[in-house]
């Protein structure tokens, strides 16, 4: 099981069967599907985690993983997915929002009433600001409606940063020059501050998606972006979060998950909806129970 390479450091060899066992586990728990052609990539990441946890063998590591000791699942998922936040991340969902979802939402709502969109977790604000920017740039009817965008997170430091709205080049990398010039102003250290009007139009609040008491304060949302957080939770917490989110949505409201996430690993409460740009999930319209 253990091996020694030239450098004298211990490296754990992982067999094909062990990789299969691992991949089946990961697929079942998270929905992440690792293709066989990426053996080198998988082995490297596994070896890193085995070393990082001080595990003497794959078998020991796998026991640790199954028990999710010290939040190993979170570290593991992070090593297999890209988890950076930036403006216009997964913009196909934003496109779906303006091309399809808002049309339905507007029809369902009493005319003149406010469209409510929630970004949770919002982290340092890139997601709720992206929603706002995208709406202004891509929704022809944007001036005909009142839209309320809320950004929530469990991390108050992230929320403070979000309210400040100051970003470096990396966060803005997917934005065109035109949009950066239009909505941001350059400040010290090569960073940019988002327009004050936008900063003032997003409400940032602290909320924990698993906590029913927190979540009970949020109701009547038309669209929720809950991306790249549920994948880290255990089954019981995912269920709790799904039930909480369900109650925060209007009937017929939509929820978007992260690109590696699926309700198949979370909850049957929502229907699967296919649109040209994305698969999203919907709270049933009529009460079928």
């Amino acid at each position, binding site marked *: 099981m253990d091996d020694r390479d030239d450098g004298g450091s211990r490296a754990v060899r992982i067999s094909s069967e062990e990789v299969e066992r691992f991949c089946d586990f990961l*697929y079942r728990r998270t929905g992440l599907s690792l293709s066989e052609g990426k053996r080198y990539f998988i082995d490297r990441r596994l070896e890193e985690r085995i070393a990082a946890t001080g595990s003497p063998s794959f078998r020991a590591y796998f026991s640790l993983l199954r028990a999710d000791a010290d939040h190993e699942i979170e570290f593991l998922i992070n090593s297999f997915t890209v988890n950076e936040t930036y403006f216009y991340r997964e913009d196909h969902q934003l496109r779906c929002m303006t091309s399809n979802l808002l049309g339905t939402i507007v029809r369902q709502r009493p005319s003149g009433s406010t469209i409510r969109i929630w970004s949770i977790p919002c982290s340092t604000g890139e997601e709720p600001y992206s929603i706002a920017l995208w709406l202004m740039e891509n929704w022809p009817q944007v001036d005909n409606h009142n839209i309320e965008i809320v950004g929530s997170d469990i991390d108050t430091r992230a929320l403070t940063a979000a309210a400040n709205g100051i970003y470096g080049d990396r966060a803005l990398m997917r934005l065109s020059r035109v949009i950066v010039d239009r909505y941001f102003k350059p400040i010290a250290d090569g960073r940019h501050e988002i327009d004050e009007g936008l900063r003032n139009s997003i409400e940032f609040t602290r909320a924990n998606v698993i906590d029913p008491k927190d979540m009970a304060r949020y109701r009547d949302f038309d669209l929720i972006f809950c991306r790249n957080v549920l994948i880290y939770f255990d089954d019981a917490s995912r269920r709790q979060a799904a039930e909480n989110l369900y109650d925060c949505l209007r009937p017929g409201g939509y929820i978007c998950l992260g690109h590696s996430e*699926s309700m*198949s*690993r979370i*909850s*049957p409460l929502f*229907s*699967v909806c296919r649109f040209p740009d994305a*698969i999203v999930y919907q709270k049933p319209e009529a009460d079928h129970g």
Partner: protein
Amino acid sequence: MVEVDAAAKARILVVDDSSLVRLYYRSTLERAGFEVEQSINGIEAMERVLSQPIDLVIVDINMPRMDGLTFLRALRCGPSDISSLPALVVSTESEMRDIAEARASGANFYLVKPVAEAELVRHVCVLTGVSL
């Protein structure tokens, strides 16, 4: 081993929460010339049939979060490009009432586990219109 027309390459979606069952069906059907996708429950299966062309679903009944019969009923009420998908239910349940319920939910055919490779291939060929 039965071989099929090489040009056929019908796409089969295997829906079962058991990784070994999925592997068994996949290796059997790939050897027989089919392309195989997999899903772990009815919700993932719905996402797959909505996202990519599938010619036949093979569905287990007992799965977490969305069982096979609930999936079938949702399939039959779905958009027109998926609502008529042939569906083969392969389940541990063997009572007449289970088979009747599967048919009522939208199954085209029903096999009781464990299924022999030749039997699986034969049924998949019939349900995809692929010649033996």
